[in-house]
């Protein structure tokens, strides 16, 4: 969160040196002692944002936990590993949280804590891979539309408009069933069911990325469009810089901050969407689990006689805190790069 004083300075700097890239915020050009790159200044501002830093540490901690937990289980062995094996069925169904099962057990007596940590692998991976896919499609689409302009631009952006007006859920479901059906018809199925299951997860990743690039394309296009006519780009062109040089040297570095920021906000959106699809039963298939499937199982156990609150509260709590951390991180990046929300 930048203070109002800082923002006013930004505007002053923009007026004095109109050719500068917009990502710089502190008036370093006015003060020769304070010479740092836009990236360094963004990093300094990011570090001052307490919510973003705490979120980053939380995410690091979560990543460490989900990597370390399978190792811990393997090393310790014996009953400890057996109790906490996420796929180990036992008679201790619906055990409330306690010393043995920290987050309780589910309908089949499986340890909820372990299942959440193993589910985290899929939930987080889907966010990262899906955001990556949306990044590639969105940046290419938007950059081409903005840079080439004219008819190409309007054609590409009309496609985005039409896709925007289609309910996403229909698009996703049809896409996933189509890809899944194609997979079923191919030869992988007979050879290895485990491989098929993994391919299904990959399809889910790609499918989610393939429907999440629209906003990215619009943002990048807008940025490229405004950068293209800026004086420093004109100057480069006048000095004989070709389109590749202009894109690589001037456009892409200046779009970078916006893209990183929006990317950081796409990750939680895709994590949320995956949990929604898994909740519908369209995402990962059992025995694999993601946070969405765990919550769905918890919801299916709601009844007026007994309350198994830990089946919803713990997976839901982990999902919500992770989404919170990812969003605070994204907001922190946005403020650090001083990206306008439009």
């Amino acid at each position: 969160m930048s203070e109002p004083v800082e923002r006013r300075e930004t505007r002053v700097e923009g007026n004095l040196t109109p050719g500068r890239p917009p990502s710089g915020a502190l008036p370093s050009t006015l003060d020769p002692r304070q010479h740092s790159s836009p990236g360094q200044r963004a990093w300094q501002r990011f570090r001052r944002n307490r919510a973003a830093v705490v979120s980053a540490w939380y995410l690091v901690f979560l990543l460490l936990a989900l990597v370390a937990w399978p190792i811990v289980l393997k090393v310790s062995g014996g009953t400890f590993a057996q109790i906490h094996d996420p796929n180990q069925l036992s008679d201790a169904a619906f055990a409330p949280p306690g010393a043995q099962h920290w987050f309780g057990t589910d309908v089949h007596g499986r340890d909820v804590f372990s299942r959440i940590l193993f589910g985290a692998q899929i939930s987080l991976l889907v966010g990262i891979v899906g955001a990556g896919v949306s990044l590639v499609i969105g940046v290419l689409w938007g950059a081409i539309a903005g840079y080439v302009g004219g008819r190409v631009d309007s054609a590409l952006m009309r496609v985005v408009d039409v896709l925007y007006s289609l309910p996403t859920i229909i698009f996703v479901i049809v896409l996933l069933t189509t890809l899944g059906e194609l997979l079923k018809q191919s030869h992988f199925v007979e050879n290895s069911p485990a491989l098929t299951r993994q391919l299904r997860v990959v399809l889910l990743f790609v499918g989610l990325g393939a429907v999440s690039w629209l906003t990215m394309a619009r943002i990048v296009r807008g940025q490229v469009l405004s950068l293209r006519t800026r004086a420093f780009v004109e100057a480069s062109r006048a000095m004989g810089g070709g389109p590749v040089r202009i894109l690589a040297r001037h456009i892409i570095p200046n779009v970078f901050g916006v893209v990183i920021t929006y990317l950081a906000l796409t990750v939680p959106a895709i994590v949320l969407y995956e949990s929604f699809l898994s909740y519908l039963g369209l995402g990962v298939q059992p025995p694999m689990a993601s946070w969405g499937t765990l919550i769905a199982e918890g919801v299916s156990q709601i009844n007026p006689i007994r309350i198994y609150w830990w089946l919803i509260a713990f997976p839901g709590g982990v999902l919500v805190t992770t989404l919170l951390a990812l969003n605070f991180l994204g907001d922190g990046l946005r403020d650090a790069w001083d990206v306008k929300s439009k």
Partner: protein
Amino acid sequence: MYFLKRLIFAVPLLLVISALAFALVHLAPGGPFDRERAPASPEIERAIKAKYHLDEPVWKQYFRYLGDLAHGDFGVSLKYRNHTVNDIIAQGLPVSMLLGALAFGFAMGVGLPVGFFTAARRGRWEDYAGSFFSMLVVCVPGFVIAPLLILLFSIKWKLLPVGLWETPWHMILPPIALGLFFAGKVARLMREGMLNAMQSEFVTAARAKGLGENRLLLRHAFRIAVLPVVSYSGPMLADLLTGSFVIENIFQIPGIGVFLVNSSLNLDYPLIVGLSLLYAILLIGLNLVVDFAYTLLDPRVKYE
């Protein structure tokens, strides 16, 4: 004039959307009858397909569909075969729209004051608490908050019914569960809009003229600050009014959101295309309304 032009322009857009939805579903392998309980004999399958013209080429089916549509007929659902798509929409849409409208009211009623207040108290603990609240509710999915609300209010304290959609008592929890996410979005947009507006020159000018702070924020800053919320409310209403699968499913509400998901799962062509068109019409229409409201709120905005 501008709005008339956009209204006319919406027709080809809707045609493209219907064609795309049509093509998309037809590209998908399998058909609406794949999940019937008993596999029919080849003759019967052929007869069913002939009855619904599924044996014709896709473009021919599409033009047949458009012809029916011109008469206001959305066709017959291929899964719920004793219902036309018109019936399903007529039954489910009012319920979903009421739920969506209540959720919209809740989102605005909570989001606008929270956003306004956090911006006015910027940097103090009220700001941190309010901003954290709005970020938190954006991160809580409906399938987490809805069961938690049911567990607390319906099962533990037995204050409100668990589900269904009959008396006003049934209409308290679902709109809250549906609207909380949007309340958080609105609050965040409102806060940011207020912060930008409070830095703009006309507010500084008004303050320099000695206008009181309350009047300044409420009359001058608010009017500009609310614009991002206004432009967000178009897509938001389109989303809310066409129903939510999760909320309708958890609370057992007979709305239209359930059909949106089920029709896609069943590849029920007429229902998918019909519901896609419904959503697109709402989205385009609401965006038009939003842009019109913009010109009223901000005299600087003019459309050519």
